[in-house]
């Protein structure tokens, strides 16, 4: 509404007993946005090295995700096939059209049938990468883009995320820092259209405040944690 914008801004300024910010204060705000200072990082968000990866696994499992730790990219197909077989899940999956994933030796597991693209209503299993794993709370950070459709994180009952250990960060702030550094972008250009922090499978406590898993999103979140960085250091498969 054309009039509403000015009316709201003016009402706020009246309340603050001032007009529009003067140039100096406005510049100070802009500077704060550019510097985006971090605040206190609690101890749970400051782990390093092996301890960081250990915390990530511990917290993800505490939130009902499952984690398989493997030695390198070559073991990805076997780990996925084994997970699906163990749980009696279909061996057909939809996979993110992601370069890093494409270089994995899928031919080692001929029974895995993979389609590349976004998820459709009847896809039962998805395979994606993750931009980062956040150790603080065992959270996956998934960033949308041509190589990482958002529907893969949402529609299938089983979501398998392949995460390289080198992408496990300590805190939310460190995940943002990575995004800032790897994209080199700032402000309006910084975030992909959709960034999801996913901590375990979908759940609800709406019936009598009792948590049940698997409501609208995936019923199972399985994280394949890859120890070696593998070839190429692209932006997390984005």
């Amino acid at each position: 509404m054309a009039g509403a914008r000015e009316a709201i801004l003016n009402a706020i300024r009246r309340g603050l007993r001032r007009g529009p910010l003067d140039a100096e204060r406005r510049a100070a705000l802009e500077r704060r946005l550019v510097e985006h200072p971090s605040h206190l990082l609690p101890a749970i968000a400051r782990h390093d090295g092996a301890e960081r990866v250990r915390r990530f696994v511990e917290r993800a499992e505490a939130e009902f995700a499952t984690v398989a730790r493997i030695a390198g990219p070559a073991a990805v197909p076997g780990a996925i096939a084994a997970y699906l077989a163990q749980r009696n899940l279909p061996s057909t999956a939809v996979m993110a059209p992601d370069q890093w994933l494409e270089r994995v030796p899928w031919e080692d597991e001929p029974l895995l049938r993979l389609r590349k693209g976004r998820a459709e209503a009847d896809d039962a299993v998805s395979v994606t990468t993750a931009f980062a794993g956040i150790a603080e709370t065992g959270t996956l950070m998934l960033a949308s883009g041509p190589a990482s459709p958002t529907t893969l994180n949402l529609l299938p009952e089983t979501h398998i995320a392949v995460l390289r250990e080198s992408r496990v960060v300590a805190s939310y702030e460190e995940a943002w820092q990575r995004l800032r550094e790897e994209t080199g972008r700032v402000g309006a250009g910084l975030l992909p259209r959709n960034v999801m922090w996913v901590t375990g499978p979908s759940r609800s406590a709406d019936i009598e405040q009792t948590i049940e898993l698997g409501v609208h999103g995936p019923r199972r979140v399985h994280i394949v944690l890859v120890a070696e960085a593998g070839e190429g250091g692209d932006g997390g498969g984005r």
Partner: protein
Amino acid sequence: MQPTSHAFKAEAERGLFDAALQRALGKARGTFLDRRRQAIARLPEFEALREIARGIKDHTLANLDAYLEIFEANVRTNGGEVHWCANAEEARAVVLSICRRLGARLVTKGKSMIAEEIGLNDFLAAHAITPVETDLGEYIIQLRGEPPSHIIAPAFHLNKEEWAEAFAKHHPGRGARPRTERKELLDEAREVLRERFLAADVGITGANFLIAETGSSVIVTNEGNGDLTQTLPRAHVVLASIEKVVPTLEDVSTILRVLARSATGQDISTYTTFSTGPRRPGDPDGPEEYHVILLDNGRSALVGGEFQDMLRCIRCAACINHCPVYGAVGGHAYGWVYSGPMGAVLTPALIGIERARDLPNASSFCGRCEAVCPMKIPLPRMMRHWREREFERRLTPAASRYGLRAWVFLAKRPALYRLVFGLAARLLARLARGRGRLRSLPLAGGWTLGRDLPAPEGRSFQDLWAARRRAGGG
């Protein structure tokens, strides 16, 4: 929705005698309190983070106009649209015009208190557009045709038997027998709502935060319903009130650390999603349009005044979960969207104190709400401000006003005060006849209806103080 906050007393009484409601309240409350306590015990820095979170919001509110302008510019840069709306009517009109332009018939909705505030569902239905709530708690109350009773657990007042009954009635032909276990109910809702997600033309969500730095909206959910709502349809419409903005990703990260812990007692909710504009070139999915409705609806008038602190609220519901009054009467008694202590402060600000005069009085002033608030909002103090305003505007009941005036008259005359209250104390002590309590009291029958008055022991504090002074004490 039409407020019925003026009827608080009658509705509260009804709640007290509603056996099913009392059963539901009893079951749910302990859970929230225990989980929150445990979550905070796992984060020793919680107190320090509260203080920082408050500082971030105070800084934002002191520059709210500028941050909203920056947010708006960044949304536009990313191809989204921002619609400023002064009131509910304007916000409804914007939603309708978007739906009409897209020829929308079916709209899915994530949980949004703003949508409740502007009465969006009834409005859309009246214009031949079907709104479907997808948060399970919102879905069940939509089926039952009632408002939410809690800001993060809309179906707080329901037992699973009531869920089963509503599902059996509204999902004909599903399953030979009624589903009664929680897991079965969830599975049934998943099936029914999945069809709706896929068929919807427009998805409407609320926003827990807006980020000025990036022009993003943030939702926090456990079910994933908000994500399906905003990802699958052609357009994503975000309903947000103006105070939701924060400056940067780092700022929101700090506040997120206190949000879920205060709300459900989780370290973090299952899904925290940052949405920035519509689908980009090359994106295989996502909405083609992204709209943010910035709703004022009375909030700008709170900036700079004695209720500004309320604009720090992040809707975690810790105050509600810890409130003995809410725990006794449930959320519906509050008669509008917001309940508990935060509702007792916010509702009068948004719909007018004359329509919600009982709410600031529905408090024992125990102070737990302020003690648990992650944003350190002085809720009891603001309820007191409302009471002062009610007194000034003669909204306080006549009996209280005259009573207070009589007390002031006496309190200014110490000798008379001592005489009158000394007599009264002795009289009440005699009336109690050694039982120590009075079951009923002349002229205060309403007060003693639900509780006893402890009888005075005979000697007043001033008597005791004088005796102590005489005995040579301090």
